[in-house]
């Protein structure tokens, strides 16, 4: 009845069950919503429908007689769908029979056995036996597609999921379909290797064992694995992953869909680079005796550290102690680390390795340094400018999101001294000289302020500042050359008039000589062109590591307390602690500063070095005490990704015997130093953080759930919660 259907949903009937779905939904998706399984091979929810495999047949009344493929049929009002009629069941059996004709009898030796769509659908929908008594066709196998992927041509059922992923989603050096008809095969372009960083996704979406991962080859069977939902720890995007563990080793990570962050994909780094969990782990604390690091017990180590630190406090005072935090430990652990250093030891010297940001907050907007837009917002942008950023190398899944935006019409502008993977998609690639990003940002800002549409009178301070640097700017223009200068001008004008411009720069680019003001200038550029706080617009740094932003939020900074409040006493920064002779004792957690000092060794004036890490790094080799910590797969906690999604990591493995979680070590150490903290676990610490930090207000372990929560700063009681 017309008056009942005032909502904008489409009402259809599947197998006599009524269901209401959004317009534009496919019949297959509607059936899945009510729990009806329709077997399918070529369809994938994140890719446009194809209809090649002919597996997802359903009968639709009042449509042409043969069954329709439900993955290409869009729902329409009043549609009546049958998924279990005689004709549909016969069609499914027939399709499976055809697929099994040439499919090799490889189940016992195929890696996919146990999680194979062909096995599962044949069992549930297939013919009981075969009528084929001829010889199956054979190809030499396996064929390496790259160092990581092996192709088995006999098993391939030509669903084209892999080739469509490479063509439509990842758009780089991928797999293609070669030939037609019965000669069709999956392959790469001649003399090309499938060396995309997203190649692991094709292994995951292949419904049979045609594409298999070389790192996972023959390791285990799916039924022996234990699955734990967690988050990847290898870059700041924080893609949701599922850690698969056999007995006590991590065998692989699979993707777990989070539409707000990773869109269902995972890059190869996340999928296969977890060697640090399984190998080369520290198993006992080490104490340096007679110049050699020797195994010791935990109590011994704690007493030793407590004694030495108390001595240093007495003789040199708290200023002589410094702490270097980690960008890869959880929020709770970073919070306890700074609490240990500030409250227990009384030192203000705490920092971690990060890009150059003047002050904890941006002087122009008063916000802390982070992306103002969400990752999902990238899809809504009309212009995406990457300044000294190469997401393909550093934050790969963002590269996929940018390509998705591009497919919806966004223009990409790249300002970089080197080649990047997105160059060939860029509307304009502006090649600046090495370390020229700082000057390029200033030139962009100047051009933007000079644009007619921008009201420069509002930003007179900025303008005067730029005027005072007129000489340097002119020099830069000459060094860059006329062409580059014009391109920068053009880009600035584009950003001004853009429907929504997202400007991203790499955090570490601010450390290059001459780029100290990169962050300030890019942020100012976004502000003057009104590209903040609008859908599809934003600006921000692309952080380096899994919890870089969390470390900043938790106050592992010399000039900021947790939630970016002003410190009472400014502490020494990362590079200062490594070069000042004032520091007598240094506590390094999950970091490797030995890579960032000039010589091979840390300061000789350093008397006491504590290193807490999972493996014996270069810094740990010089330490006086080494404490073994556990990896992200062995503990629980929360981590904050680049657009401020706070996500829960969960324990997939039992903690390595002999190693402890970082938060446990901090609590023990505080106890030995006279402060008894009463935390039972990371959940308790999170509760305390939620009470004191506006960015984490109202968060608890339960609310983090499986998809995390994106939070913004709560200003006052009634600020809106995102």
């Amino acid at each position: 009845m017309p008056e009942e259907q005032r909502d904008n949903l489409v009402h259809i009937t599947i197998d006599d069950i009524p269901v209401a779905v959004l317009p534009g939904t496919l019949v297959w998706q509607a059936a899945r919503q009510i729990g009806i399984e329709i077997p399918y091979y070529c369809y994938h929810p994140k890719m446009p429908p194809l209809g090649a495999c002919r597996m997802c047949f359903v009968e639709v009344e009042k449509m042409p007689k043969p069954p329709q493929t439900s993955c290409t049929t869009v729902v329409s009002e009043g549609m009546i769908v049958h998924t279990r009629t005689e004709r549909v069941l016969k069609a499914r059996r027939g399709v499976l029979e055809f697929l099994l004709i040439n499919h090799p009898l490889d189940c016992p030796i195929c890696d996919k056995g146990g999680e194979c769509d062909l096995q599962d659908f044949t069992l549930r929908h297939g013919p009981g036996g075969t009528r084929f008594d001829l010889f199956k066709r054979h190809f030499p196998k396996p064929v390496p597609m790259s160092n990581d992927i092996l192709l088995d041509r006999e098993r391939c059922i030509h669903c084209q999921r892999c080739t469509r992923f490479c063509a439509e989603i990842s758009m780089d050096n991928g797999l293609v379909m070669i030939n037609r008809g019965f000669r069709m095969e999956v392959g790469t372009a001649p003399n090309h290797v499938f060396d995309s960083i997203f190649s692991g996704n094709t292994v995951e979406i292949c419904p049979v064992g045609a594409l298999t991962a070389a790192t996972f080859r023959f390791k285990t069977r799916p039924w022996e694995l234990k699955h734990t939902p967690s988050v990847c720890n290898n870059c700041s995007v924080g893609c949701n992953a599922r850690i698969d563990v056999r007995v006590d080793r991590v065998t692989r990570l699979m993707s777990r869909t989070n539409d707000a962050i990773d869109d269902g994909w995972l890059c190869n780094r996340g999928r296969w680079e977890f060697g640090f969990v399984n190998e080369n782990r520290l198993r006992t604390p080490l104490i340096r005796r007679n110049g050699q690091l020797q195994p010791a017990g935990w109590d011994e180590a704690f007493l030793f550290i407590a004694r030495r630190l108390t001595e240093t406090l007495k003789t040199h005072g708290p200023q002589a102690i410094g702490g270097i935090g980690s960008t890869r430990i959880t929020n709770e652990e970073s919070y306890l680390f700074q609490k240990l250093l500030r409250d227990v030891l009384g030192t203000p010297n705490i920092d971690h390795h990060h890009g150059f940001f003047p002050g904890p907050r941006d002087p122009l907007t008063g916000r802390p340094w982070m992306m103002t837009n969400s990752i999902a917002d990238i899809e809504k942008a009309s212009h995406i400018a990457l300044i000294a950023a190469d997401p393909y190398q550093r934050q790969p899944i963002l590269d996929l999101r940018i390509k998705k935006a591009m497919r919806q019409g966004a223009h990409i502008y790249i300002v970089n001294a080197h080649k990047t993977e997105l160059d060939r998609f860029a509307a304009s690639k502006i090649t600046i000289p090495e370390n020229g990003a700082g000057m390029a940002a200033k030139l962009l800002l100047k051009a933007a302020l000079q644009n007619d549409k921008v009201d420069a009178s509002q930003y007179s301070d900025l303008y005067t500042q730029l005027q005072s640097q007129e000489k340097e700017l002119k020099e830069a223009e000459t060094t860059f050359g006329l062409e580059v200068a014009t391109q920068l001008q053009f880009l600035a004008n584009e950003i001004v008039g853009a429907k929504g411009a997202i400007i991203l720069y790499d955090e570490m680019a601010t450390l290059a000589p001459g780029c100290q003001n990169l962050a300030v200038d890019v942020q100012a550029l976004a502000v003057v062109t009104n590209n903040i706080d609008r859908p599809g617009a934003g600006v921000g740094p692309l952080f380096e590591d899994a919890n870089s932003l969390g470390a900043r939020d938790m106050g592992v900074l010399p000039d900021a307390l947790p939630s970016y409040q002003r410190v009472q006493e400014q502490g020494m920064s990362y590079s200062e602690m490594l070069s000042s002779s004032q520091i007598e004792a240094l506590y390094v957690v999950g970091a490797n500063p030995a890579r960032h000092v000039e010589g091979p060794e840390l300061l000789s004036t350093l008397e006491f070095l504590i290193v807490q890490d999972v493996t014996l790094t270069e810094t740990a080799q010089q330490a006086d005490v080494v404490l073994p910590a556990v990896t992200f797969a062995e503990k629980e906690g929360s981590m904050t990704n680049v657009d401020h999604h706070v996500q829960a990591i969960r324990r997939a493995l039992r903690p390595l015997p002999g190693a402890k979680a970082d938060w446990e070590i901090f609590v023990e150490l505080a106890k030995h130093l006279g402060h008894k903290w009463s935390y039972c676990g990371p959940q308790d610490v999170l509760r305390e953080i939620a009470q004191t930090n506006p960015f984490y207000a109202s968060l608890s372990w339960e609310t983090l759930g499986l998809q995390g929560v994106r939070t913004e700063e709560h200003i006052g009681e009634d600020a809106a919660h995102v």
Partner: protein
Amino acid sequence: MLSSEHAIVVYCKEYTMSFDIIKGMATTLKNMGRKPSTVSFPEQERELPPRFRGRHVLHRYENGLERCVACYLCAGACPADVIYIEAEENTAEHRVSPGERYARVFDMNLLRCIFCGYCQAACPTGAITLEHEYKLVAFSPEELIYHKEQLLEPLGQATVGTNADWYEPPPADAAQPVPQESHVFDGFEATAASVGMGDLPTERPILLANEEQDEDRRKLAGEDDSHL
């Protein structure tokens, strides 16, 4: 005095006996003359029925290759979590089994094993069977975790084991399939599953009607010299 059908009263000096007691004593007397079924182990050993389920053995083919392809089906079927397998790739230099993979590690915790035979039933190549060895002793639990070397039949021996007793023998005119060492898996070569228990016919006429479809097989077998 009344007497029922069951109770025949026997007058005796001390007590009365019912028929059931007499039946029991008759059984005892009957068996007194018989030979006992006790087997005085270890001097004598009981003769075992052919399908007796004792300790497992991993079998080989006649050309020395191991049958086990580390498919994990026995480990998956086992109700007691007895078997631990790690698979490894066969290379041209080091070929252990026909096909792509072999079992580098094959550990069985015989303390957990209930000798049900599910692993033998699950194995697609007839690699693992339960044979007649039952004298399993050790001084420590670690010794009863049998590794592959202890389970594998020695080089030179290639038997089918008790699979011959559990399953139909192959037809008389079928040759024992000899696995080839190529990478090609064909109907009459020892693929993981097509070998089965040795009961598939190995010679089959080629029924192809379409020459073009047979192109790959001809090329690989070297019969097709159209490129010359």
